[in-house]
């Protein structure tokens, strides 16, 4: 992060400004502040190892071991739960490939693949990344996983709590599918009433959920001229996200809170 000197007043006004931002503006703001987004866009120099349309891998300038790679999605996500499944799957495949590259090119004896979600977990940057670290025996990195003893009562309490959340996470997923189906039906019914140009677009193969949503809402609330619909689209899109992943959203909000503080700290 670029060091900036700010007076306390400036910091305060900045914090106020951040608080009043809409989620879209906030995302833009975070992107601008994010050194890794600047690396990805080429504004800041880096030692690039690999790049494709989804992700980019660079050498860490503060490596745990020589050859330490940071693999990050090009899109700005703070933490793993924000990443869409397909992108995450792609990242996992690339990190596997990078690990293989290390074994071959550096004759590493092993690799550690490390992810930190949240400052409490040691996350330093506001941009999600996967660390792939080449390992040699006796390199004494503090990456051994400590072990503790839990009583059987504690264990079963933890099990109950986590198991419940696992089910909830999966159940919510099922529900959201149902919601989507319902909306699709409603949308079909609505489409009949909808004017033709919309239909043509639909036929051109853009049956995006967001679009379905906004059409649906547009119809429900009375048809509006095109310009206004765009805002409706944004709003409904947000709604979709909330409906689909309430669990994730919650975490995002919490993490988002941490993020703001961190931005403020960095600015100080």
């Amino acid at each position: 992060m670029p060091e900036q000197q700010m007076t306390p007043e400036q910091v305060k006004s900045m914090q106020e400004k951040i608080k009043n931002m809409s989620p879209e503006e906030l995302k833009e703001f975070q992107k601008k502040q994010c050194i890794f987004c600047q690396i990805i866009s080429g504004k800041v120099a880096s030692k690039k190892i690999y790049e494709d349309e989804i992700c980019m891998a660079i050498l860490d300038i503060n490596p745990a071991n020589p050859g330490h790679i940071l693999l990050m999605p090009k899109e700005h996500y703070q933490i793993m739960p924000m990443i869409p499944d397909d992108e995450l799957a792609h990242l996992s495949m690339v990190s596997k490939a990078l690990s293989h590259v290390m074994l071959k090119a550096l004759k590493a004896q092993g690799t550690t693949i490390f992810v930190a979600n949240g400052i409490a977990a040691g996350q330093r940057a506001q941009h999600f990344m996967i660390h792939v670290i080449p390992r040699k025996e006796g390199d004494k990195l503090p990456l051994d996983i400590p072990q503790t003893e839990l009583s059987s009562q504690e264990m079963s309490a933890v099990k109950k709590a986590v198991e419940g959340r696992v089910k909830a996470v999966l159940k919510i997923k099922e529900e959201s599918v149902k919601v989507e189906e319902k909306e699709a039906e409603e949308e079909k019914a609505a489409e009949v009433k909808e004017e033709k140009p919309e239909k043509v677009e639909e036929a051109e193969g853009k049956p995006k959920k967001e679009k379905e949503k906004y059409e649906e809402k547009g119809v429900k609330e009375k048809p509006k001229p095109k310009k206004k619909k765009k805002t409706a689209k944004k709003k409904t899109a947000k709604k979709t996200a909330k409906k689909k992943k309430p669990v994730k959203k919650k975490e995002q909000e919490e993490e988002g809170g941490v993020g703001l503080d961190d931005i403020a700290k960095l600015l100080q």
Partner: protein
Amino acid sequence: MSETCVFCQAAKGKAKLEKIYEDKEIIAALHPRPASKGHIIVFSKTHYNIVEQIPDYVIGDIFKKINKLSVAAFEGVKSQGTNIIIQNGVAAGQEIPHICIHIIPRNENDGINFQWQPKQLTEEEMSNVELSLKQEAENIGGFQKEEKAKPIKLDEKKPEKILSDEENYLIKQLNRIP
């Protein structure tokens, strides 16, 4: 391998584990000696020693589930963050030769420290590493995103038939000669 491997035994239901999730591909269970409350280990039912052996489509699938499970662990124990760690190889601290992924819920001042000291490399060392990694990384790509359908061996039976027909024919011919 599967007879001596703890995780393979667990996949068959022969080892005691506090399972929290299971499907046809993976098992997630609480670590019996956790780094923190809610420490989950995730492993595939198929035996893979190291990450490099896992097919692309399987590791993609595993990560999608890891993501969900980490959210569940995060919320289940109300932690402030999570670490996801794969120890790939003995040098990385891998203890069981069956790859397993750790999800560790984290809290501030929880006594766990994974923060490494950055190593100081000279410009030359850095660019040497960069060069050799870059060269090797050129081969990355062509991910196998879906399981390939097993090739149907069409031409295996046919020649047999032809042969047997021929044989029959030849045998007939042979039988005719006398």
